[in-house]
């Protein structure tokens, strides 16, 4: 199921001195099954945009279409519960939302609210805990005695328990150490391969290049570009305007290319693939 924005604007606190237009005329299609990054400065409208996907915010003008749900400006949307089950949102620092006595109960909270039967929930929890990279021994532990990265996995498991088709993630790697962050990204890649649409708000350009199919660049509440990460990172004038630097591997590859080494930039997604491309260009055998 795809998500379509049609001429969406959103204004915070309209008709007050604090009025602020966060989104301006957004027209976008987010295709089903893709791994999509949303990038842009603090204040460019990234979080406001994604909160429209499960109707936490509704447009001031225009409409948002998620599968067969259509959310128009100014009408009270119906069937929100179903929509929010389809599009699961993981906020920044989701570990702050944990509250139950055990990991099991915490993951159960969502499906229980959706009135699923206990046996189904139980089976689901046992498979989800493994999916997020923890084992069953965690289920009876208190979420509060876990490490930061583990807590975040539990919070994500709680969203996955509602079996969303779309998973929206707002800076899910913030504050994690390099290993924790890359394991988190691998988890999202796994979920994407299982068919879920992943929408990732992030400041980490390395991950955008390495994992995403597509990047949407926001600037002052408008879409500045929607393209493959490789394309976004080769648009020098856009990068400059956004003061974004391309990931090191791509930046370095361009330097090599300029100095005369023939490299296929479209194959480069991380340092490892850059090294492969260099070896190939130099004629070094595997």
């Amino acid at each position, binding site marked *: 199921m795809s998500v379509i924005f049609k001429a969406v604007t959103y204004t915070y606190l309209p008709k007050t001195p604090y009025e602020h237009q966060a989104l301006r005329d957004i027209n976008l299609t987010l295709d089903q099954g893709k791994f999509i990054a949303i990038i842009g*400065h*603090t*204040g460019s409208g990234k979080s406001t945009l994604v909160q429209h996907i499960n109707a936490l915010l509704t447009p001031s003008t225009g409409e948002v279409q998620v599968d067969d749900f259509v959310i128009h400006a100014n009408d009270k949307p119906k069937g929100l519960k179903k929509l929010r089950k389809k599009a699961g949102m993981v906020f920044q620092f989701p570990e702050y939302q944990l509250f139950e006595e055990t990991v099991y109960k915490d993951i159960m909270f969502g499906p229980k609210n959706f009135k699923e039967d206990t046996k189904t929930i139980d089976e689901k929890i046992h498979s989800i805990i493994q999916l997020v990279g923890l084992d069953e021994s965690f289920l009876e532990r208190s979420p509060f005695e876990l*490490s*930061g*990265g583990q807590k975040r996995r539990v919070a994500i498991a709680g969203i996955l328990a509602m079996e969303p088709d779309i998973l929206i993630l707002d800076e899910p790697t*913030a*504050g*994690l*150490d*390099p*290993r*924790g962050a890359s394991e988190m990204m691998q988890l999202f890649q796994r979920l994407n391969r299982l068919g879920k649409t992943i929408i990732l708000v992030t*400041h980490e*350009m390395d991950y955008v290049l390495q994992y995403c199919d597509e990047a949407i660049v926001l600037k002052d509440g408008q879409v500045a570009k929607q393209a493959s990460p490789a394309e976004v990172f080769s648009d020098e004038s856009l990068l400059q305007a956004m*003061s*974004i*630097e391309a990931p*090191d*591997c791509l930046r*370095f590859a361009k*330097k*090599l290319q300029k*100095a*005369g*080494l023939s490299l296929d930039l479209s194959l480069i997604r991380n*340092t*490892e693939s*850059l*090294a492969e491309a*260099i*070896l190939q260009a*130099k004629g*070094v055998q595997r």
Partner: protein
Amino acid sequence: MTYAIETKDLCFSYEPGKITVDHLNVKIKQGSYTVILGRNGSGKSTFAKLVLGLLSPESGSIHVEGIELSPETVYEIRNKVGIVFQNPDNQFIGATVRDDIAFGLENHMVPREKMDGIIEEYAEKVGMVKALDKEPSHLSGGQKQRVAIAGVLAMSPNIVIFDEATSMLDPKGKRDVKEMMNHLRKTFPSLTVISITHDVDVARFADEIIVFNKGKIYAQGTPEEIFSRESELVAIHLDVPFCHKLRSILDKRGISLSDCDEEEMVKVLCR
């Protein structure tokens, strides 16, 4: 030799039986730019809180510029040490940038006549003079951190600790704060700058890197020395900068680029 910070057998646990800082012996040189690198839970932020007397050690001692930390000296030590925290929104107090920088000075009972000059001086040093009358909510993350830095510097500390000060910022904000750290070292050569992070790019420019793991020092040395131990760093959940990583992969495949910087690598690879 007097160190900026020296700890002896420092121990601390948040809960019994689970030690966070484990017989730690740290020596940080005065006037150095030292990066403390470590995975989540390695004890690095706890170390900063211990140095500031925000937590009390279970055992061991902390000396800051030769003065032993104790209930009697804690305020004297806090006058010497400033800290910039992770989340810029959690440390803003004033309604404007000017008020925010003034907050610390007011607490130190700096006379009004002097205060304005000091505020202007430090706002200038972090490039925020034009924003002095702005509200914090109108600033970007990087700008907020710069104001926080000005507020800390205005107290004329000898030591400034950045505790994950770039981790919540967007790429531009990160770059702003990293540049600011380098700028500080040039502007205040006698200032000791300590940056606590797991961002290896911050660590590249340090005089010295101290790697924490499980509440102990795992390694200590120059960036070159530390980043040449890639597999060990990866094993303790850290990483190495791009240049080192590429060099080591190519090295294993027979292209030797030992000690080359980026420009030299381009030359060698395009030969």
